[in-house]
């Protein structure tokens, strides 16, 4: 199984931060060998892998015991090296702004996705988002900078790389 992407995408991510959505961590757990080589390629290309606390909450909640909680925490740490984009008052203001911009399209968007979007707004060209949730990040608001495909036995997993450029 191999990850298919445009090599130019890696160049555009160089020296930038790539924010990882909850679904990425879940997919990493089910296909670790595919993602490990891809993440190491990104790290070797000076891409900083990061996330936000809300994503961590979504991953950690439901852990049946302390060991399972710590294993999840370690997995996040191995990938992101503890780079967590802090939630600032500006980000909260951007969440309210995004809610207005989404209008009715935002009726089913998760709070975590709103915060991820707000982080993109705050850090603009220095921050990208990698997500499998390709319907909640509207292209009238966020720019789709690239697409990554992972063929697997049950079909093709497609991931979007988004940025806020307005």
């Amino acid at each position, binding site marked *: 199984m191999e990850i298919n992407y445009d090599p130019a995408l890696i160049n555009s991510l160089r020296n930038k*931060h790539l924010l990882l959505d*909850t*679904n990425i961590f*879940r997919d*990493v*757990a*089910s296909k*670790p*060998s595919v993602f*490990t*080589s891809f*993440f*190491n390629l990104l*790290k*070797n290309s*000076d891409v*900083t892998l*990061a996330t936000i606390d809300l994503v961590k909450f*979504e991953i950690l909640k*439901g*852990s*049946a015991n302390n060991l*399972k909680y710590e*294993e*999840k925490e*370690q*997995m996040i740490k*191995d*990938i*992101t*090296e*503890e*780079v*967590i*984009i*802090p939630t*600032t008052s*500006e980000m909260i203001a951007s969440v309210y702004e995004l809610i207005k911009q989404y209008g009715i399209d935002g009726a089913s968007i998760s709070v975590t996705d709103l915060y991820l979007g707000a982080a993109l707004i*705050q*850090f603009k060209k*220095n*921050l990208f988002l990698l997500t499998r949730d390709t319907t909640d990040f509207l292209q009238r608001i966020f720019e789709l900078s690239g697409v990554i495909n992972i063929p697997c036995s049950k079909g093709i997993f497609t991931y979007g790389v988004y940025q806020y450029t307005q």
Partner: protein
Amino acid sequence: MSLPKAKKTKLIDEEKFIRLAKRVNKSFEEEVRYILETKMNNGDKLRPCAY
């Protein structure tokens, strides 16, 4: 405000990480089973996905 950076870039140790990820995946599967069983027992509507 600037973006936080890792102190020193550390590559993922593939062998060790795969072992860890497999354990985490089992936890996720356990949680999905728990959610489905709880919802069925309560007669709730099932969502197609747990997240």
